[in-house]
């Protein structure tokens, strides 16, 4: 299937995606015929209750898990059939991650963690990349912390390091999995503003999985999943609107 992402303006898309676990009577359907596209430069939130398949969708789009059927594209690359090594290189160069539990390497200091994706590639950032990283470090307020180890940082600071690491390679797409789940509300709002700014100021495409309406209200677009299907697709909304839609979903079920 030919697919021109520049023309469609999509950074990633999945078509007719299904994912089932187990077989026979014990089959669990995590994703059921999902087709979506994420727009270039958008901050997209993927919402849904526990078990709706939102995490599975993100894992598959990020090349961490493979679908049972359907196809997955990142830019103009069909990643559905890629082998482990190719997927690894793809994650290293074209995808960034921000996790719920911060997930920094404890033996490396802040700068070591931010530069890790370059190190994995066996190279040092060039002048242009170096300038970009310095800019990130400054705008994320980490300048005084570059030689600190993760355990000496607060949760909010650790998450900002993770964001700097994710943005450092200027990936096609950054995946954020409940990035505020382990943070107090003030640090959470800070992290969300930083993600939104990365999208508006630098045109960074971001896909964020969350169940928090406040977090989702920072996004340009919100996709709702339930029982493995996309049930709603709406533009930027307030936390109240998102909450009331989620409540209506609950009562409809």
């Amino acid at each position, binding site marked *: 299937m030919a697919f021109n992402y520049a023309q469609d303006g999509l950074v990633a898309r999945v078509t007719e995606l299904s994912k089932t676990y187990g077989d026979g009577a014990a089959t669990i359907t995590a994703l059921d015929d999902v087709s979506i596209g994420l727009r270039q430069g958008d901050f997209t939130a993927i919402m849904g209750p526990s078990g709706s398949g939102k995490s599975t969708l993100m*894992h598959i789009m990020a090349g961490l*898990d493979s679908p049972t059927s359907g196809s997955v594209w990142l830019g103009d690359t069909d990643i559905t059939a890629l082998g482990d*090594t190719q997927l690894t290189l793809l994650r290293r160069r074209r995808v960034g991650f921000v996790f*719920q539990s911060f*997930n920094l390497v*404890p033996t*490396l200091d802040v700068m070591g963690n931010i530069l890790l994706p370059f190190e*994995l590639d066996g190279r040092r950032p060039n002048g242009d990349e170096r300038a970009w990283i310095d800019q990130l470090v400054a705008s994320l307020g980490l300048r005084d912390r570059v030689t600190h180890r993760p355990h000496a940082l607060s949760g909010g600071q650790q998450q900002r390091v993770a964001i700097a690491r994710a943005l450092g390679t200027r990936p096609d797409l950054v995946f954020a999995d409940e990035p505020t789940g382990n943070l107090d509300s003030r640090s959470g709002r800070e992290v969300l503003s930083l993600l939104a700014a990365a999208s508006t100021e630098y045109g960074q495409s971001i896909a964020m999985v969350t169940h928090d309406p406040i977090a989702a209200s920072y996004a340009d677009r919100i996709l709702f999943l339930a029982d493995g299907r996309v049930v709603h697709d709406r533009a930027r909304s307030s936390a109240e609107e998102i909450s009331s839609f989620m409540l209506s979903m609950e009562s409809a079920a």
Partner: protein
Amino acid sequence: MRASLRDHRASVLVAALSSAFGVLLLEVTGALSTLVTADDIGRHAAVSVSLTIVAFVFLTIAVYVGAIVTTNTFATIIAGRTKTIALLRLIGSSSRQERRAVATEGFVVGLIGSALGAVAGVAAAFGAVRTMVGTGLIPDLAYEFFPPVLLVPVSIVFLTTWLSAWIGSRRVLQVTPLEAVGASQELSRDESDSRRGRTVAAIVLSIIGIVILVLGVLLGLVSQLGVLVGVVGGILSFTGLVLGAHLFMPTALQLAGRLMGSSAEARLAAANAVRYPERSSRMTIGLVIGITLITMFAVATQTFQDMIHEAMRADPQMYQGVDGVLSVLVTVFSVLIGFSALIAAVGMVNNLSLSVLQRQRELGLLRALGFTGGQVKRMIVVESAQYSIAAVGVGLLLGIAYGWAGAQALLGSIHGSPGLVIPSVPWLLLVLVVAAAATLTAVASVSPARRATRIAPVVALAVDS
């Protein structure tokens, strides 16, 4: 019992090896005594007693190394169980109850291990003697395979295993119920309270020991009694060094890490090896002891031989036939000590496996960020190489120093001796030790590396690992 047998495979193996070693030594001693008695009745008692003493010296070394390995293994297992223990504490179990449960596991491990080892030791001795009788190598006498004295090594191994488990389970007391609730970070605290006292004891013992050792060497220049003073100094200083391993092993590991290059995986491996100084010191000290002892005996006998050769030129008749006896002795001793090194190696292999199991999430993160399976594998191999190289390096240095001091204290004063000599290191020893280190690195990293590459990157994203 909630403990999986898998956790304790290495401890059972260590106990079984020690017990089999002890039983086999006594069986061989017994068979030799029977042989000697048949030859010459008068000398029986004396030979039997001195052989038994030698057997117990080597058994003690093996049990000592085994105890260090088992203590460390239990401490590592408990570090991995922190979450479960915290949960049980939360529900209302006391830390004493939890510790007692772990000690009970040590009791069972000791029982099974020492019994298995006893059976294996008796079977091996029986097989060996029967084979030698069958081929006519030794006469068919009334060899005794179940002397009551066998119970001594078996019970020593059982009791030390149990005791080691108890000491290793100390960590249980530090687990708080809160660790089950909070998104607890990785265990990073060291036993800092007990550490200060230990550091002081280690430094004091080392200094006193080294001073006595130097005195022994100096006294050795005028009298052979120097060796007795030297032995005291050697035991004291070595105990101090073992106690204070956390003071110098991290440095040795860092130096070994520098040899590994500057690729991302080498740098991460280097950082991992020194992440918990306490733990990596305990992990490697067993091997350091083994290598030190082997090197000490080899260097001592080689230096000894050189000095005898010097002396021979002055007085050829006096030293006839000494050469042959010496080389037999060094072979026998190396094999006996090598057994302790084997036990230490089992401990290191197991600890590396456990530490990989406990780092699942971190390895998953590296995979998610773009580490290839090959890079993860190389990282584990490099880490393993670092432990081996650091342990072997320190062991060689210590062994050469102690071996030289021993030979010097014993022979510095003999007729025709050149006085102070430089230590001579048998090149064969160096080759063997380096080969052993390479083998150990490979063996230690095979299964952890395979397991590490099987970790799915998704593990890193899971909220609960």
